[in-house]
């Protein structure tokens, strides 16, 4: 009997053990490839509607200012202008609450300023006009009188007594007494007695690290096309990682019934977490409601940088103790993150991820969520984790150097394994950190000779991964082909992995499956494409939906043969009699069953709705070689290898793509990317010219090793792969720079002038 044989597992998310897959693990062409190489694929800004207006948003040039007067009358009077909206045009029923409890209020306040502009780029008003040029001209006619207030953009400054208060009453109850009102949330976790642990150490290193805010840097600016009638019914087309979430937020901010707003997700030109929230969609809908016409709203690149969420910046203190044999005796970290003028910086993730790679008896972590006059942070690929890995893995590297220990051996010695009590609480089921370290140690890269001026760095990284609410429907056609409706936008080839999993279960060719990202009116609720959850959760739901259809197919065969459904197996796309009936009837292929399905009981579909909770955590180990020009301080990455646990790679090519993409983003974060604020609190580099993401000539080929340690919480063993890959690069490169030039960079980015300053100190010390 084939290994893809049907075994009843209803409701069970458990790993089903090793098997020989027929489709999963192969590398077919992605189903949407043709559209995307011919220019046919429609992204956020690629939709047009009859009678459509074009919108533009006026933004504050000040970091912190009271809006004393806002007069839109001249703009409204301009020929071609059809509507102007301000905060007054949004819901009055969205209520302020401290911390992240009042998230809808926070989103509303972020997408359209209330009494104060809270950061450079904060939206103040919006215009819809017959052409984009008229809309932009109209913005110049809006009169705003600002009372400029003191501002703060640095996380440590914002915590000091006397720092300008962004918003009174924003702190939730977690914050200890006596903190500055800008500290809005507090976290602590860990176990053991760290002081006792440090006392056991032969060497304790304590150090301070900072990382600057970086932007997700998706190449597609936010864009949408909205229609909203006075009857409260609307249609919205937008580029988003989660259209059900957009639906929910827009409905709340505009006082609509959720179901009356149908949201369709366009193709999405990159997200990396930055398109998990809402910036412009309610504005387009508000303008449409006022003008009575469809409104298209497309952000400029400068708006994307100034007003959409970068990641948080961080200020961190790390203390780690180690014995001479490499055993870590205790670890402690304090993590201060600013996430802009709103609560929500992912400091608890930073704290929880910081020491998650290691089996520690004594560990303690503390986090602070701090508000500043910057744009509201948004998720960015493993939010909070890369900065923690930068700080912690740098200290571990320094300990290894000073104690003369091999960095991989030390990590192996302390690595978390199955049964380890994680630094953030739970006990790990089967995990793959050790396997990634062993694969890294065995990789030719680790033993390759280095040239003069080069250094090698190692780092590990961790991310939780996530499941979340998921619905999938699968419908069979008469000819035996299948449509799969998923609710998670395809950010990087997920249609291909869904089709592979459906094909595996149904036993039909991959090419006979069409995967559609359904709109909110066509499928049950789906959480956002985030938390590396798509291949895990939508994949699990696809497998279950396909099995639901297979159950119905088996029933039709059983009915035809007059035997019990339990005596029908599903093998290689055919119903096959089994048990006492084995061999009694010829196998009945899927297409034979669907050909007559109308007459044998009606259409055959499969469905699955659930909130799977078995997303397996994921670990990675990266190896990087870097070369430092000691005269200019410039770092070049000359070789890079990513080793990561994928659980089970459904489409290995796209798994490699996630590994490579995360590494490249991490290289950018490590070396050149940063939000630069002037003394005036204005963002100095709102464009790709000076926000320097890696270009093709900056990078080497990025080698990949896919480790497969099955996730106990997925039938095929899948773990999310999208996020973990950005966690190790920051420290791996810092460690490589340290080994190349003998200087330890504690602040990101490691821009050339910083490396040069460290080299100067090194010379002075010598």
């Amino acid at each position: 009997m084939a290994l893809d044989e049907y075994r009843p597992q209803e409701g069970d998310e458990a790993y089903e053990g090793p098997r020989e897959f027929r489709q999963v693990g192969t590398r077919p062409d992605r189903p949407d490839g043709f559209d995307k190489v011919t220019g046919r694929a429609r992204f956020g800004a690629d939709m047009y509607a009859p009678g459509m207006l074009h919108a533009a948003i006026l933004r504050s040039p000040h970091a912190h200012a009271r809006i004393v007067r806002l007069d839109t009358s001249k703009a409204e009077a301009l020929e071609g202008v059809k509507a102007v909206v301000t905060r007054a045009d949004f819901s009055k029923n969205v209520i302020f609450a401290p911390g992240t409890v009042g998230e809808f209020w926070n989103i509303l306040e972020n997408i359209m300023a209330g009494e104060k502009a809270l950061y450079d780029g904060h939206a103040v008003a919006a215009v819809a006009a017959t052409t984009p040029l008229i809309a932009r001209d109209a913005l110049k006619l809006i009169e705003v009188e600002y009372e400029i207030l003191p501002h703060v953009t640095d996380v440590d400054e914002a915590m000091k007594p006397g720092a300008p208060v962004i918003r009174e009453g924003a702190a939730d109850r977690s914050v200890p007494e006596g903190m500055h009102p800008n500290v809005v949330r507090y976290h602590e976790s860990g176990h053991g007695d760290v002081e006792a642990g440090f006392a056991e150490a032969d060497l304790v290193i304590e150090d301070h690290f900072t990382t600057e805010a970086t932007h997700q840097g998706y190449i597609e600016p936010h864009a949408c096309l909205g229609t909203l009638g006075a009857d409260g019914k609307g249609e919205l087309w937008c580029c988003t990682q989660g259209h059900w979430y957009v639906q929910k937020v827009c409905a709340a901010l505009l006082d609509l019934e959720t179901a009356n707003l149908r949201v369709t997700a366009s193709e999405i030109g990159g997200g990396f977490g930055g398109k998990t929230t809402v910036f412009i969609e309610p504005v387009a809908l508000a303008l449409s409601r006022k003008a009575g016409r469809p409104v298209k709203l497309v952000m400029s690149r400068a708006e994307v940088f100034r007003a959409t969420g970068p990641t948080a910046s961080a200020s961190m203190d790390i203390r780690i103790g180690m014995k001479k044999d490499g055993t870590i005796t205790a670890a402690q970290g304090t993590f201060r993150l600013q996430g802009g003028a709103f609560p929500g910086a992912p400091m608890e993730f930073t704290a929880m991820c910081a020491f998650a790679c290691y089996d520690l008896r004594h560990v303690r972590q503390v986090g602070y969520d701090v508000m500043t006059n910057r744009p509201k942070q948004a998720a960015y690929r493993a939010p909070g984790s890369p900065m923690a890995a930068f700080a912690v893995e740098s200290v571990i590297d320094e300990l290894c150097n000073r104690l003369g220990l091999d960095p991989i051996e030390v990590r192996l010695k302390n690595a978390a394994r199955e049964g380890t009590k994680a630094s953030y609480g739970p006990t790990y089921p089967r995990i793959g950190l050790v396997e990634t370290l062993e694969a890294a140690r065995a990789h030719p890269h680790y033993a390759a000779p280095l040239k003069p001026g080069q250094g090698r760095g190692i780092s590990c990284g961790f991310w939780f991964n996530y499941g979340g609410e998921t619905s999938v429907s699968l419908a069979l056609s008469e000819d035996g082909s299948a449509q799969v409706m998923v609710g998670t936008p395809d950010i990087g080839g997920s249609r291909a992995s869904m089709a592979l999993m459906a094909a595996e279960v149904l036993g039909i060719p991959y090419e006979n499956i069409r995967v559609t990202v359904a709109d909110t009116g066509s499928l049950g609720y789906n959480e956002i494409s985030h938390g590396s959850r798509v291949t895990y959760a939508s994949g699990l739901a696809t497998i279950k939906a396909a099995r639901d259809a297979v159950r119905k197919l088996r029933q039709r065969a059983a009915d035809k043969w007059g035997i019990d459904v339990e005596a029908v197996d599903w093998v290689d796309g055919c119903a096959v009699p089994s048990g006492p009936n084995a061999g009694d009837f010829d196998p009945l292929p899927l297409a034979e069953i669907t050909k007559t399905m109308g007459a044998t009981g009606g259409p055959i579909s499969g469905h699955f709705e659930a909130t799977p909770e078995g997303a397996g955590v994921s670990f990675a180990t990266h190896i990087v070689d870097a070369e430092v020009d000691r005269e200019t301080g410039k770092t070049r990455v000359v070789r890079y290898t990513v080793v990561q646990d994928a659980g089970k790679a459904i489409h290995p090519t796209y798994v490699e793509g996630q590994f490579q993409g995360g590494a490249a983003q991490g290289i950018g974060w490590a070396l050149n990317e940063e939000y630069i604020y002037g003394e005036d609190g204005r963002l100095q580099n709102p464009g790709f010219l000076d926000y320097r993401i890696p270009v093709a000539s900056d990078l080497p080929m990025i080698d990949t090793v896919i480790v497969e340690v099955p996730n106990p919480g997925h039938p095929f063993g899948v773990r999310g792969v999208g996020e973990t890959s950005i966690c190790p690069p920051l420290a791996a490169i810092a460690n490589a720079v340290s080994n190349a030039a003998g200087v330890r960079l504690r602040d990101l980015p490691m821009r050339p002038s910083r490396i040069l300053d460290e080299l100067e100190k090194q010379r002075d010390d010598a």
Partner: protein
Amino acid sequence: MDYHKPSTFEEAVAIAAGAAGTTRFLAGGTDILVQMRSGIATPEVLIDIKGIAGTRDIVREDDGGWCIGVAVTGAELTEHAEIGHDWPGVIEAVGLIGSTQVQGRATPVGNLCNASPAADSVPALVAAGAEVTVQGPEGTRRVPVEDIPTGPGRTSLKKGEVVTALRLPPRGRGGGDAYQRFIPRTEMDIAVIGCGVSLRVSGLVITEARMALGAVAPTVEPVRGAADALVGTRLEKSALDALADLAQAACNPIDDKRGTVKFRTHLAGVYARRVARIAYERARAAQ
């Protein structure tokens, strides 16, 4: 915005001289379109000079120098068979302006007239002793390139005046030039500092020398004293040290998002040495 596409420079000058409001000439457009998109400046009058005969030509003149049309793009110059043989430093500087796409449009004259202190082609052109011809309501004049920019975004061109051609002098025997810049990435950045050097040698001995630095002062200027430091030397360590000191002394930069005063000044010394060595090797090979 009014768009004009004259067919002669006389016509262009007449339009510009008579224009009310901000007037810009359009060649490659890679700066002005960015300014328009960013809302920094939208001219009221835009005069596209690409329809004027000769503006796309690269011509070797009777004296061996070169006349480069104002609409000649970076890509056309870097692909030209001979000019890069004479002036490799100028051509490598022009070739560093922007991406492949920008090279397809951007012109060195536009790079000059945009008057950015960090313009890549300008230090190389200054070191080469290049000139431009300028036509205006009051006639035509020849101007050394270093006299065109007067500050960031400002030029010495008067109302109605337009640059009509860029001229490189005859290279002659034993000449070599070079340009390098420092950027944080490998491509796509604005120079943190740029350095152009042009030398002439006789045997191993330097007989002429010019150097100019970009992004270290409000305008690109020849580094005074470069000739004194180098002429008569064989680019020994002492000569390089003197040149690096001069380069650093010539720096009057600002702290900004692309680099600090300290960093830029340091790099000026590093690049003076690096670029002078390349120019010297080229000059020696050109005898």
